[in-house]
């Protein structure tokens, strides 16, 4: 790489200006599936951060040895290996959460953010910036997941992290949990609202 890349922008851009979920619209499928409650959303976010950071570093380390015509396969093998390890760790140390996440940890393999970052960044950058890029993008993904899960759990179940936060008197006055919030379509709508809010703040992102 001839041009000097700024570590700061590599890390912070994905958090907002170049967010993988709401700007690049990648990884939407899992964002819809695991955001009915905060706890699984956070564990999912942490898993993606771990897989993304380490696969970025590994691919970056071996980037000059990878034969170009099988590079996608090499990336997939590395990602799949890491995902299985994360899944095994969850089964051993966070069994209840891993039961809730069920197949979605395995589906990290197909998360477009991973392939996107490996192809676009790790294949052409040194390990340290690749690591920052992985953590940054993972965090960008996690932030959106947590925001979506916050609203869905609060309005859908009246709880946060499984604790009741909606006061009982509200229910006594006829308030009801919004069952629709639990279902996947509402995740899509909440994500759309976040995109809307973000684009009205960030004029650069608006389509001309």
């Amino acid at each position: 790489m001839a041009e000097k890349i700024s570590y700061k922008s590599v890390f912070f851009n994905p958090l907002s200006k170049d967010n993988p979920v709401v700007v690049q619209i990648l990884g939407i499928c899992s964002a819809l599936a695991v955001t009915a409650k905060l706890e699984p959303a956070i564990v999912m976010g942490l898993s993606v951060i771990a897989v993304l950071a380490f696969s970025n570093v590994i691919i970056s380390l071996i980037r000059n040895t990878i034969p170009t015509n099988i590079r996608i396969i090499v990336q997939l093998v590395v990602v799949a290996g890491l995902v299985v390890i994360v899944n095994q760790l969850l089964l051993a140390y966070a069994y209840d959460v891993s039961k809730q996440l069920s197949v979605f940890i395995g589906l990290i393999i197909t998360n477009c953010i991973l392939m996107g970052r490996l192809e676009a960044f790790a294949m052409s950058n040194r390990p340290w910036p690749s690591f920052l890029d992985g953590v940054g993008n993972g965090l960008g993904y996690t932030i959106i997941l947590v925001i979506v899960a916050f609203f869905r759990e609060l309005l859908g179940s009246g709880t946060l992290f499984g604790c009741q936060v909606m006061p009982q008197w509200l229910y006594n006055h006829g308030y009801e949990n919004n069952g629709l919030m639990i279902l996947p379509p509402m995740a899509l709508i909440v994500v759309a609202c976040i995109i809307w809010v973000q684009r009205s703040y960030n004029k650069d992102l608006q389509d001309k």
Partner: protein
Amino acid sequence: MNKQSSTYTIIYIIVLVVVVGAALAWVATALKPEQTKNANADKMKQILAAVHCAPANNTLVAETFDSRIKGIVIDEKGDIVDNAVAFDVNVADQSKEADTAKRLLPVYIYSDDETGTKYILPLYGQGLWGPIWGYIALDSDGSTVYGAYFSHQGETPGLGAEIEKPEFQERFVNKELFKDGEFLPVTVVKAGQRPQGNEDYVDGISGGTITSKGVASMLDNCLAPYKNYLEKLTNNND
């Protein structure tokens, strides 16, 4: 060295796969004991849930389970099968065995001073999207339902998934499996309807019809082979 040659590519991918494979094998072996412990604790938790018993953590679960539950395996005639451990019987496989005479039937006998003796029977069936399973606890008369626990893999949240909620499970309490001496497992029907037969029934879940039917056929299929055993319990009590 030519990195685009076929030889290089093939050797590269072989080395990569061996390295990744070895790493995975090592991780899986290293974590196996911990995972088995979790899976077992989870199963114990579910069994205890059928008798409304919810210990706070995994250590307590194992202690409670070991001290209060005795597992036996019976056959269709109601006789005890000696060389089988109830906890290790795979209920999913057994419930698919069409010939009920060949099935191994685990019974978990729970007893403590307050609640007395309860018989917990495992259940396994199909919901709409995937497997559903559960445990049903019977009073010592072998007929009255003391408690029920259901869980599922991927039923629709808010609809079929409601079977794992206590509201649904509580509906089974105090239902009878024997009606006028006849063995009729509890069934699940649409709210407001009645079953055709004389059996006890509970209301199903609105919007979760297929899952509710799955629960009904799971109860039928899994409880039917216990008939002789439960009859013995009933007769002992009379």
